[in-house]
């Protein structure tokens, strides 16, 4: 059993026992849990970095990195066979920023292959267990990062969120996960799935830790042309009195679990108790979000994944001329879900269908964004369920891709619009965590993080641990 989990607790442990001991405990815990939350462990390097840790806001603090973020010298696979053995010769910008603050990289976490999934079951390296119930999925695609946090393996983790991939597993595993505003965190080094939608997001067991991690990794990077010149200060306390909250009715649609619905409404009332006012609001284009999201994401993916031809790195199938070899490499290297998305995306971009699908999806995207812009003219924050239900069983939905896609109904509109959203625990259903989604205006991470922090302080969901610890 471990006695520390939050960053302040970890720092206290490090003060008395040393950073190397903290790192050592992480590896012990990972081994003991055996959730399959990691693809690659960085044991030797992490211990040596911990021994020399000196200074920084995350001095000696262990962190887990999703396996689609490039780490110099550490294998980075995107949970795909096609990148097996690929060791990046450079660091993602977020990794540089973490190292500058003294963080210790424990390893690379398991995920859906190329972040395409909602359950972490499409990984070439096998599924991940949900620490709350080993027969359930941890959510996805950042399932390894969420499970590592919930299982007490690490106090901090990075995920990436293209259509809910940070918030979904945070919700399913009862931890905190932030999808920052598009452009807030550099994507340099994040292996692209759908560039125009995704952000690297901090994950932690408390809102304060997620905010701290966000402050470390966020900020302009000249190597990412879509990053924005903004300063983020999420630490300044926020007065909840008179805060205007919108609750979009469209986020409580068909297929919603009633316990989840109740938990979210209870959360709304908690905010009312804290002095906020709420009103129901309509976001009329929400219903088109899923279709638009999948067309855009798959179209971009079909192009982004074209580089994996086996010629320069990763899996390579030797056969015939270059085109035959490319085909065989890709046939062997990609899993079914990845192939499905490449095919659908290629189709949506092809001549004759481009206008009908891709351009149409872009138009819908603009409308969805407008829904948010108009809502934020009146409201400071929107509240909604992160996922329509708690974690489902391993194997339950994987054979039915469409039902898996539908699970993203409440997370994808946020990516289409580009606004920030954080998921925090707000209840339990059948001993499985339920997530509340706080959605903010562009670059207003501060409001949702401070509000989430207040909510966390007034509830005790975040204190509960899997197995009743």
């Amino acid at each position: 059993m471990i006695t520390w989990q939050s960053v302040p607790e970890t720092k206290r442990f490090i003060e008395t026992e040393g950073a190397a001991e903290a790192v050592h405990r992480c590896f012990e815990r990972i081994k003991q849990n055996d959730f399959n939350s990691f693809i690659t462990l960085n044991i030797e390097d992490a211990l040596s970095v911990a021994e020399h840790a000196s200074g920084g806001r995350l001095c000696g603090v262990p962190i887990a990195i999703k396996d689609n973020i490039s780490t110099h010298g550490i294998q980075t696979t995107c949970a795909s066979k096609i990148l097996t053995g690929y060791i990046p010769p450079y660091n993602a910008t977020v990794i540089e920023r973490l190292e500058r603050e003294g963080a210790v990289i424990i390893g690379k976490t398991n995920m859906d292959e190329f972040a395409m999934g909602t359950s972490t079951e499409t990984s070439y390296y096998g599924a991940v267990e949900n620490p709350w119930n080993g027969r359930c999925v941890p959510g996805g695609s950042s399932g390894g990062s969420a499970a590592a946090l919930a299982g007490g393996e690490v106090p901090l983790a990075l995920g990436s969120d293209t259509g809910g991939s940070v918030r979904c597993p945070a919700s399913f595993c009862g931890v905190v996960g932030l999808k920052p505003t598009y452009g807030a965190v550099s994507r340099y080094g994040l292996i692209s799935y759908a560039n125009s939608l995704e952000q690297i997001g901090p994950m932690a067991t408390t809102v304060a830790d997620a905010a701290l991690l966000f402050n470390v990794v966020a900020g302009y990077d000249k190597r990412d042309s879509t990053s924005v010149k903004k300063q983020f200060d999420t630490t300044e306390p926020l007065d909840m009195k008179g805060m205007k909250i919108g609750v979009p009715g469209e986020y409580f649609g068909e297929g919603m679990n009633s316990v989840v619905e109740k938990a979210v409404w209870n959360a709304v009332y908690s905010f009312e108790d804290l002095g906020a006012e709420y009103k129901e609001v309509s976001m009329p284009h929400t219903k088109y979000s899923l279709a638009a999201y999948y067309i855009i994401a798959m179209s971009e993916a079909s192009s982004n994944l074209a580089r994996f031809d086996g010629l320069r790195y990763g899996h390579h199938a030797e056969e015939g001329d270059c085109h035959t070899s490319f085909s065989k490499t890709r046939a062997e290297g990609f899993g079914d879900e990845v192939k499905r998305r490449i095919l659908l995306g290629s189709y949506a971009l092809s001549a004759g269908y481009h206008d009908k699908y891709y351009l149409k999806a872009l138009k819908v995207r603009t409308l969805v964004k407008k829904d948010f812009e108009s809502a934020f003219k009146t409201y400071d924050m929107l509240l909604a369920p992160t996922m329509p239900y708690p974690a489902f069983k391993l194997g339950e939905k994987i054979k039915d891709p469409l039902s898996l896609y539908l699970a993203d109904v409440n997370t994808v509109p946020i990516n289409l619009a580009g606004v920030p959203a954080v998921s925090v625990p707000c209840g339990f259903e059948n001993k499985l965590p339920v997530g509340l989604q706080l959605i903010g205006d562009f670059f207003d991470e501060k409001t949702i993080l401070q509000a989430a922090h207040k909510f966390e302080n007034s509830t005790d969901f975040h204190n509960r641990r899997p197995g009743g610890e």
Partner: protein
Amino acid sequence: MAYENKDQVKIGLEIHIQLNKLNTKMFCGCRTDYQSDEPNTHTCPICLGLPGALPVVNKKAVECAIKVGLALNCKISEYTQFYRKNYYYPDLPKGFQITQYDYPIAHDGSIIIEGEDGERCVRINRAHMEEDPGRLVHEGSIEHSKYTLVDYNRSGVALLEVVTEPDLQSPKEARRFLDKLRNIIEYLDVSDVNLEGAVRVDANISIMGGQRSETKNISSHKASEKALLYEIVRQKNVLRRGKTVVQETRHFDEAREITVSLRTKEEAHDYRYFPEPDLVPFRIADLAPMIKETLPELPDAQRERFIAQYGIQEEHAKTLTAELKLATFFEEVLFKGADVMLASTWIADLLKGELNYRGKTIDSFSKTDLLEILSLLEKNKITEKSGIEIVRTLLDTQNQSVSRIVKGKGLLRIEGDEVTEMVKQAVEGNKDAVADYKNGKNEALNFIVGAVMKKTRGRADPKKVRELIIQQLHTTQAGINS
């Protein structure tokens, strides 16, 4: 005579120009001076397309493109945007090429060339930017090589693609257009067009209003003319056999000087263009006026100025401004005090001719040498013929100097008593000719002049020699009479 264009030839060109004068590539910081370096030494995660690496636009490259756009009288777009062109090839490390589609840097321009029949205005459809792919290298020939090597040093170098409307009416006009474009590019100093692969042309051609063929892989201006001439013959033969020309992409085989079919319209690639999500659209409208201020004097303007300012012949002005280095050479020689007419004739006609004959450029001739030659000519110390001999000797041998050649070959003009003496000898030595002349045969005089010129090895002034001979003959006559 009016040009008929009886085959209704329509040619449109797509010209790829490597912006190799930039220090760095289009989307990363790798240096572009890879030409003499080991393969794959000018690479980084970005131009190798490693997972997670993102492109960042080279601002200088955009400025160069705007420069060219302005020089081609184009409109500069308010916003410009990059797109992805998706296709698989080993030289393309990302599986797509970053290029432009809608919103190119520049559009709707035109330049005027010397056409078959007076001036021809060639409309420019657009000028857009893209990245160069890597380079495939084969052991021996492409057919016999057992493997292909890939060099990514070129990958990501900035290219500018200029697309014309099908306004050209003959292969010769196509070549003239290319010469003119190359000339402008040279003046703008955005590309060293002489480097291998710096300019690549795709040529679209149709005849008799039929379908067009697109010929790729044309690497020189001469080759473009050859490829187009071949295409006209080929398409005419197709029509003669009662068939129709199909729209297709063809490849120019430079060695065999023919074009071969690559793929038909049905087999055309679907490039699935879509906006590059990693690069946001950006405003360039504000850059254009500032860049316009910095545009250098372009060839057409310079030609007009040479005629107006120096009063030189139009043909000479044309030749001089067809090459920036030649024009600069000319003006520098003038600045050092050379005579304008002498300098323009000698550089544009004589020197240029000798250089062309040897496949050399003006770089291989020193200004000081020319100045010395011009000064000798001006002072009448050497004849034009000797001047040419000096030029040739300087071009063909090493470590020479004008004075040494003049001395060594004894090229200084022969004057005064020396010439008079030779004339005397010639008159005495050609009694028959003298007799003929006296009998009224004027041609006989030419014979004697020729004899003197031969003896002086061309170093005397033939006019003067003629005068002296007549004088001499009259003196002799007077002597006989007395």
